[in-house]
C-alpha cells in the first residue's frame, strides 16, 4: 500500500468539496509529503524497502547514492498502537545492511527489531514488528544499523520516517489540524556525483526537508499545524528557528510531554524527533533557519543554512489550543533505582576514528551489561571528551534527571539525549516492559562515533535467569543473536512469551517496590 500523500490530499479535498466544506487545494509549491505505506483495516502495514544504488535527486542536484525505493525521500511507514508492520528489506546492493526501528518499543527477538541480524547482498530480510496496544504515538524512524557501515549508509539515504498514529487521540481538539512530516537530513557534497566514500561531518552538505531543497511550507494566519520533525541525518545536529512564529512542543522522541512547553528554537540532535504545534503568523514569509553548529573543540563545525520558508497567506483561521489534559507519565524519580551504573563515553587518545565506552570497543559477540526485567536503573553518562556525544538506547525510553549535575525539569521521556562535552547526563531507565526481553544496544548516535566503537550490548533477562546470563556475557549472553532457539538452549527454560499487543510490566509496578 504505497501512495503519494498528494493523492490522498486531493481525495480529501474532493470529499471536502462534496461535503460543502471550504477547503482550498494545497498550492503546488507547498512542501511535498513523503510517500507512505499505511495500515489496512487489520492494522497491518506491509512494506517493501528496496535498498539499491540509484540515481536520485538530492534537492535539485543529481547524485548516485544508496537509497530505498529509488528515492532520496524515503517512504514514510505509518502504523498505529496495536498494529503490525511486516517489512521486506530487499537488499540489491553489493554490501550488507540491516534495519533498526529507532525508538520503537517492540521485541528485539527473532524477526523483530534486532541489529544482530544482517541482510546480505541480493538477499531479502524479513522484519515483523508487533506494536503493543499502548505503544506511544508519534514520530520514529528506521535506518541501517550495520556496524561500521551505518554512517555511510544512513548518510547516503538508507533511512526513513515512521509515524505511529494516535497523538490526535490524546488531544481530540487537534482532530482537524493539518499534520505534516518534515524529514531533515544532510547529504555531503562531492565532486564525483556519487555518495562520498568517507563521511566528513563538517564537509559542505545539502540540507533538505523531505528531500527538497529550501521548500515552501504554507500555512494560513492563525492556523494551527502539527509538525513532526525527524532528524535522520547520520551525524549532524539541527538547530532550527522560525523568527516570529509561535511554536509549542507536543512530544519529543514520540513521547508526549506532560505539560505545556513553548519553544522559540528547536534543538534536534542526531536521531531525535519532535512534534510541535505551529501557529500561522501574520501574512508574510518566514525563513526556517538552521543555525551553524559546533560540537566542541574536538568535534565538528558545520555551517548554518536556509532550510525552507514558511509562507503565511490566505484567509485567517482559528487557532487551536490544547484543552485536553496532558497524559500522566510516571516520574521515575519517585522510584528507588535497583542499580546505579556509570558509563564513560571517551575518545581515543591515539586514533581519531576510535571511540570507547568504559575503555571498550564495540564487540558484537559479547554482552557488556545485564539487566533484570522489572528494574529501574540510574545511569550516569560521563563525557570526558571535548566534543558532544549523543546517548541512545534501543527498545525503550528513559527520563533525563540531571545534566552536568543539575536537576532537569521533567517534561516527559525520550530515547536519546546529548552528553555535554566535559560533562555528564544522568538518566533513569525503566527496564520494565516485557516486550524488551532480549539483547540490544546502547550507543552514541553520532554515527561516526557509533561506527568507531562507541556502542555496547545489553541483555534484559528474567530475574531468575540473571546469574546464568551474567556468566554468558563473554560468549554473547543467553539470547545468542536474539533467536529463541539459542535462548532455550542456553537456559533450558520456558520460551519467552511477552504479552501480545500489550506492554504490561512484569511483576509488581516498579513504583510500588520501595
Amino acid at each position, binding site marked *: 500500500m504505497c501512495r503519494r500523500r498528494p493523492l490522498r490530499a486531493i481525495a480529501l479535498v474532493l470529499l471536502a468539496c462534496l461535503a460543502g466544506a471550504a477547503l482550498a487545494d494545497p498550492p503546488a509549491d507547498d512542501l511535498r509529503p513523503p510517500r507512505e505505506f499505511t495500515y489496512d483495516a487489520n492494522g497491518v502495514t506491509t512494506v517493501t524497502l528496496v535498498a539499491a544504488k540509484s540515481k536520485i535527486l538530492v534537492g535539485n542536484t543529481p547524485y548516485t547514492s544508496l537509497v530505498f525505493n529509488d528515492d532520496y525521500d524515503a517512504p514514510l511507514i505509518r502504523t498505529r498502537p496495536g498494529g503490525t508492520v511486516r517489512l521486506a528489506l530487499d537488499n540489491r546492493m*553489493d*554490501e*550488507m*545492511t540491516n534495519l533498526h526501528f529507532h525508538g520503537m518499543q517492540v521485541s528485539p527477538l527473532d524477526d523483530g527489531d534486532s541489529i544482530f541480524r544482517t541482510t*546480505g*547482498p541480493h538477499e531479502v530480510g524479513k522484519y515483523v514488528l508487533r506494536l503493543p496496544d499502548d505503544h506511544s504515538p508519534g514520530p520514529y524512524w528506521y535506518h541501517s544499523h*550495520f*556496524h*561500521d*557501515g551505518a554512517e555511510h549508509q544512513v548518510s547516503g539515504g538508507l533511512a526513513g520516517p515512521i509515524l505511529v498514529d494516535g497523538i490526535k487521540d490524546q488531544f481530540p481538539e487537534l482532530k482537524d489540524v493539518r499534520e505534516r512530516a518534515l524529514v531533515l537530513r544532510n547529504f555531503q557534497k562531492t565532486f564525483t556525483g556519487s555518495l*562520498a*566514500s*568517507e563521511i*566528513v561531518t*563538517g*564537509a*559542505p552538505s545539502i540540507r533538505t526537508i523531505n528531500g527538497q531543497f529550501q521548500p515552501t511550507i504554507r500555512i494560513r494566519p492563525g492556523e494551527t499545524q502539527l509538525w513532526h520533525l525527524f532528524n535522520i541525518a547520520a551525524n549532524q*545536529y539541527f*538547530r532550527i528557528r522560525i523568527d516570529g512564529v509561535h511554536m509549542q512542543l507536543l512530544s519529543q522522541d514520540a513521547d508526549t510531554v506532560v505539560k505545556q512547553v513553548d519553544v522559540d*528554537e528547536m*534543538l534536534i*540532535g542526531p536521531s531525535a524527533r519532535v512534534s510541535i504545534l505551529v501557529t500561522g503568523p501574520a501574512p508574510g514569509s518566514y525563513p526556517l533557519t538552521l*543555525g*551553524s553548529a*559546533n*560540537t*566542541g*573543540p574536538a568535534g*565538528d*563545525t*558545520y*555551517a548554518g543554512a536556509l532550510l525552507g520558508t514558511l509562507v503565511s497567506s490566505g484567509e485567517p483561521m482559528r487557532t487551536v489550543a490544547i484543552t485536553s489534559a496532558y497524559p500522566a507519565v510516571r516520574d521515575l524519580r519517585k522510584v528507588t533505582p535497583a542499580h546505579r551504573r*556509570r558509563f*564513560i563515553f*571517551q575518545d581515543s*587518545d*591515539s*586514533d*581519531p576514528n*576510535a571511540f*570507547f565506552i*568504559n*575503555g*571498550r*570497543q564495540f*564487540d558484537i559477540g559479547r554482552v557488556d551489561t545485564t539487566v533484570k526485567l522489572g528494574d529501574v536503573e540510574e545511569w*550516569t553518562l*560521563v563525557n*570526558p571528551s*571535548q566534543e*558532544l556525544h549523543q546517548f541512545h538506547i534501543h527498545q525503550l525510553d528513559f527520563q533525563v534527571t540531571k*545534566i*552536568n549535575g*543539575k536537576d532537569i525539569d521533567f517534561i516527559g521521556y525520550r530515547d536519546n539525549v*546529548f552528553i*555535554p*562535552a*566535559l*560533562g*555528564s547526563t544522568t538518566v533513569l531507565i525503566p527496564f520494565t516492559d516485557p516486550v524488551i526481553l532480549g539483547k540490544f544496544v546502547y550507543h552514541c548516535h553520532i554515527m561516526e562515533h557509533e561506527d568507531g566503537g562507541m556502542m555496547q550490548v545489553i541483555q534484559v533477562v528474567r530475574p531468575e535467569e540473571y546469574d546464568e546470563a551474567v556468566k554468558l556475557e563473554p560468549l554473547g549472553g543467553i539470547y545468542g543473536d536474539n533467536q529463541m532457539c539459542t535462548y532455550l538452549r542456553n537456559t533450558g527454560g520456558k520460551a519467552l512469551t511477552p504479552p501480545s499487543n500489550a506492554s504490561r510490566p512484569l511483576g509488581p509496578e516498579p513504583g510500588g517496590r520501595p
Partner: protein
Amino acid sequence: MKRRAAFVGMGLALTLAGQAQASNGRYPGLGMDYSTAIQYDFSSLDVPHQPHTVTTNGYFDITTAVHFRLTTIDEIWVGSEISPVTDTRPGERRWLGGTGLNITDVNWYHQGYVSSFRLGKFDVPFGRAQDAAPGLYTSDFVAPYALGGMNGGTYEYRFFTDNWGTIAPSLSLYAADTSVLSRSFLRPSQQARRSDGGATNTGKLNNAAVVVNWRAPAAIPYLEVQVGYMTNHKGDVSAASPTAANEQMRVASVRYMIPFVATTDLGPTLAGRYLDLVPFVEYVKVHNENGVPGFDTKYLTTSLTFDAGRFAYGLTHTNKQISPSGGPRSNEYLTEASMVYHVTGLVDLALSGGRSRQGGQTSGLLGISITLNGSF
C-alpha cells in the same frame, strides 16, 4: 630484521584480506584521511653586534593516511607526508623548496575490544607534547623524544574500573628504519644506513618503551596522566659515531580540562559559546640524547589552551636544559603564542609567534598556515 617484520605484517594482512568476503559490507575497503597545509614561516635570527638575519620559508605540508580496511577492527595504515625535507639556510628566502615525500607509517593496526596494536612502521607512543601542546613549532622542538617512523610493534591494553578510570599500559619494541622507506622520495636523497649510528639504529627490536596512560575516573574527571620509560640501544660504533652510548628517557605528563560553562542546555555548545581551559605539563629526562655519550637533557613543556568556540588560543613554553658531562650547563627554549580559527568544518587558519633559543642563537618566529582537512 625490520624488513622482515614489515613483510610479516604485510603478509598477515594480505592473508586476512584473502579471508574477507566481498559480501562483508565495506570490507575489504579503502579510505584516506588527508591534511593539506600551506605554511609560511618567518624567522629573525638575533646575532649580537650584527644585523638580524631574516629567513623565510613558504611550503606545502600534505599528510595522508590511507586505510586499507580488512575487517571492522583490522586495517593497514599507510601514512605519508609531502613537506620540506631539507632545512633553510640562514638568510634564505625559500618558496616551495626542498620538498620531498616521506613514508611515515606502514603498519597493521588492530583495535580490539580492550586492546590495540600496530605492527610495522609506526610512531612510538611516548610523550604527548608533540600533539597536546598548542602552536606550530613545539612538535619540532620536542622531536628528539617523539620518535616517529620506527620499525617494530606496539601493544596497548586498556583496564577500566569505575573507581580507577582507564589505565592503559603499552609496550613498544622497535628499531630505526633503514629500509628503502627511510629515504625521501621526489628528490635526491639517501636511504638511512646502519653506519649512520644514533640511538635505536640497531637493526634489532632491542629498543623499548613502556608507557602507562591514565584517564582518571568520573570522580576526578578530565584528568589525564602519562608516565613512561624508554631505553634505546646505541647504534653501531662507526666513524660517524665513534663513542655511541645507550639512551634512556623518562616521561611524566599531566593534562587537565576545565569547562567554564557547565550548562544544562545544548544551545550554548552548538552556538560555540563555551570556554574550556586546558593546562598541560610534561617533563622528560633524557640520558645520552640520541646516543651521544654524556649529552643529558631535560625538557619541561608547559602550555595553556583556551578553546572558545571557533577559536583556540594557546601559550606554550618548552625549556630544554642541556647538561653535557664535563661541560657547562645551558638552556634552550621555545615560547610561542598561537591562535587557531576554524573557518569551516574543514578549513583551519593558524597563526603562531614566539621566540626560541637553540644552538646559542636566539630567533623570533612567526608562522601562518591554512589547513584543509578531509577524507576520501
